[in-house]
C-alpha cells in the first residue's frame, strides 16, 4: 500500500542537537490566576513532543503563547537559536510555527484546494487554479492522505479527512514546528488511525511536532518525548521509550514530582511531611 512506500523524505542530515524552538522560564498570568509558572520546553526537528496534563494544567495557554494569541509575561523564546518575540499570530506564522487548533477553522462551503490556499492563493492576473490543485495533490500525496477529490466541499469530508486538510494547510509555507491541539479528540477509531499515521509522516518530513492530547494510548504510540505540565509548572520531561503509562499518569496527577531542580532556597524551607519521591 502507499502507506508503506518510503515517502520522499526531507534529507535526514546530521542530528543537530540545537533545538528548533526553545522556551525558557515562561510565565503567564490572567489577573490573579497564574496559568504558567517558569515553564521550560525544547523542541527539536524531526521529533514528536507530546504535552500532557490535567485540565487547567496550562497546555492550551502554552500553545497560545507559541501561536501568538497571548504574549508571555516573562521568559524568553528562542527560535533556531535566535531570541524572538511573538506578539501576534502572523509573527508566529512568519517564524515557521504552524498551529492547528481543535476547531480546525476550515470553511465548510469551500473545497479542499480553496481551504488549503485561503489567503495565500497562487495567482497571476487571475487565480492559478491548476497550479494550486497540483500543489494540493502533491501535498496530500506526501501525507498519504485518503481524500477522494480536492474539489469537494469540506462539508462532505469525514472528521479525519478534515483534520488531514487542516494539517495539510498548516504545512503550506513549510513550517519548522507544527502544533496540533487535541487532533484526535473528536474522531472515530479509523480516523484516529489516519491522524496518527499523519503525525508519523510529519516527523519523517523533519518537522518538529508538538502534540497536545488527553489520550495516553495515542501519545505513547507516536511521541518521542512526553512533557508533563501540572498546575502551570513542568512536572517531568520523559523519553517515551523509557517511561510507562503509570509513570506518566503519576506525574500528571501529582503523585510523583519531577519538577526541575530549583536553586537552593535562601532560607531553609519547612520540613516536608510524608514520603519524598
Amino acid at each position: 500500500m502507499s502507506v508503506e512506500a518510503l515517502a520522499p523524505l526531507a534529507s535526514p542530515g546530521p542530528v543537530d542537537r540545537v533545538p528548533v524552538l526553545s522556551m525558557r522560564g515562561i510565565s503567564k498570568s490572567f489577573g490573579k490566576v497564574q496559568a504558567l509558572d517558569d515553564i521550560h520546553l525544547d523542541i527539536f526537528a524531526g521529533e514528536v513532543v507530546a504535552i500532557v496534563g490535567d485540565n487547567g494544567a496550562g497546555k492550551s495557554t502554552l500553545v497560545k503563547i507559541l501561536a501568538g494569541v497571548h504574549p508571555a509575561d516573562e521568559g524568553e523564546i528562542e527560535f533556531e537559536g535566535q531570541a524572538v518575540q511573538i506578539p501576534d499570530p502572523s509573527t508566529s506564522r512568519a517564524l515557521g510555527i504552524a498551529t492547528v487548533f481543535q476547531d480546525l477553522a476550515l470553511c465548510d462551503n469551500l473545497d479542499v484546494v480553496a481551504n488549503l490556499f485561503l489567503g495565500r492563493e497562487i495567482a497571476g492576473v487571475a487565480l492559478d487554479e491548476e497550479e494550486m490543485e497540483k500543489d494540493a495533490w502533491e501535498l496530500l500525496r506526501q501525507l498519504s492522505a485518503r481524500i477522494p477529490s480536492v474539489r469537494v466541499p469540506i462539508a462532505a469530508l469525514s472528521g479525519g479527512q478534515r483534520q488531514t486538510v487542516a494539517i495539510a494547510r498548516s504545512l503550506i509555507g513549510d513550517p519548522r514546528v507544527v502544533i496540533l491541539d487535541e487532533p484526535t479528540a473528536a474522531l472515530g477509531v479509523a480516523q484516529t488511525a489516519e491522524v496518527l499515521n499523519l503525525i508519523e509522516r510529519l516527523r519523517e518530513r523533519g518537522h518538529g511536532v508538538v502534540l497536545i492530547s488527553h489520550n495516553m494510548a495515542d501519545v505513547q504510540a507516536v511521541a518521542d518525548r512526553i512533557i508533563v505540565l501540572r498546575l502551570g509548572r513542568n512536572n517531568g520531561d520523559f523519553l517515551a521509550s523509557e517511561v510507562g503509562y503509570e509513570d506518566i499518569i503519576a506525574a500528571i496527577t501529582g503523585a510523583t514530582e519531577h519538577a526541575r531542580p530549583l536553586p537552593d532556597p535562601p532560607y531553609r524551607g519547612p520540613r516536608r511531611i510524608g514520603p519524598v519521591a
Partner: protein
Amino acid sequence: MADQRRTPGSQTSLREANRGRIVDAVKKHGGLTQVELAGATGLSPATVSNIVKELSESGVLSTSKSMRSGRRAQYVTLAHASGLVCGIHFSQRHLRIALADSSLTVVSEHEMPLARDHRSDNEIRRVGMLVADMLDNVSAERDELLAVAVAVSAPMDAASGMVARPGILRGWEGIAIGDAVERTLRVPVVVDNSSNLSALAEHRLGALRGQDDAMFIEASDGIGAGILVGGRGYRGASGSAGEFGHMVIVENGPLCRCGNLGCLEAIAGGDAVVEGLKSHYSGLKLSDVIVRAMAGDDVCIRAIADAGAHIGVAAANVASMFDPARMVIGGHLARAGELLLGPIRQVVDRSLATRLAPAPEIVAGQLGPRAALVGALSTAAEHSSAFPAVAGPADLRVALG
C-alpha cells in the same frame, strides 16, 4: 496494464483504461460516491455512471443508495458476494487490519502505530470498532464477515492459545487471544504467530513461491521465523517453533526481554540496534536508522551491517541443521535491503562453504511489512470455507427471501 491486448489508442483501450481507473479508485478508498469517483479519477460524471453501471452488471462493483451533503448519491464499492474475511496483525508497535473478499482482493485496509506495551483489552476493543467501521465503509452487513485470522508477533502456545513466552508482548500475556477476539467480533477466529503467517504468505504469493523447504525470517523490533517443511508450516510440538530471535548466539551475552541471556534478538533486534546507536544519536526510531543508513550515514550503515552479521550466524546454524532451499528476510529491518542482506549472505556462505550443496539463497521478502497481514487474510479465507455452519446463515437468508 490490463489493456495490453487491445490496440493502443483505440476507443476500446481507452474504455478499458477508464474501467481500470475506476476500479483502482474504489479499491484505494474502499467506497466512493459516483460524484467523488468522478473527482478521484478525473473522468466525466457521465462516463463514471456508464462504467459503474456496466461493472455492477458484470458483478465487479456494487452500488447502494446513500446521502452526501444532503443530496442523494450512488455509493460504489467492490462487489463481495461471496463474503468477506478479515486479517489482523498485532506487532510490537503496529496494528494492521484488512478486509478482503474470498479472492483475497483487499477492500479496506488500515494501519496505525501502537503504544509500546499496548494492552490486549484496549486493542481488541479498538479492533472491534475498526472492523464495524470498515464493514460500514464497504457497505457490508455484519454477517458477511465469515472468518478472522489474527497474526501476533509473539510465539503462540497451540494448546492454550496464549502467548507462549513472557516478556515479548507484555500486555497480551495470559489471555486466550483467539477467544477474546471471537467474543468481540462473533466470528470464528484463528490465531497464529506473525512469522508463520508471513512464511505462508510469501510461499503463496511472494518470494517463496515454489520453495517447499524454506524459511522466512522477520527482522523487526523483534526477530522471528516461520519454517516451511514440505510446503506446510512447521509449528513444533507445542506450537511455538521458529523462535529464531531467541536462539542463544553469545553464551552469557546481553539480557534479552524474554529473560534469557545472549539471544539473537538482544544483539541484533531493532531495539538493540537503536540502543547501540544511543551514544551517537539519541531519540532515533528504527525507521530513522534505516533512512539514515540508506542516505549514507556511516554509523547507521555499520549498525545494520553488524545486525546482519549476527543474524547470519544464527541463519547459518539453522541452515546447516535443516537445509532450506531459500531464506527470505522480511520485517522493518529488511527495508534496508542489501545493507542487511549482504552481511547475512556473507556469513552464511562462509559458514557453509565446505558443504557440497550450495548455501541457501538469501533474498528479500516481496510482500514487505504486510506479509503477516496477507498471510492472515489467506488463512482466514481458507477457514471461511471450512466453516459451513457460518457460511450457512447467508444462504438461509436467500432461501427465506
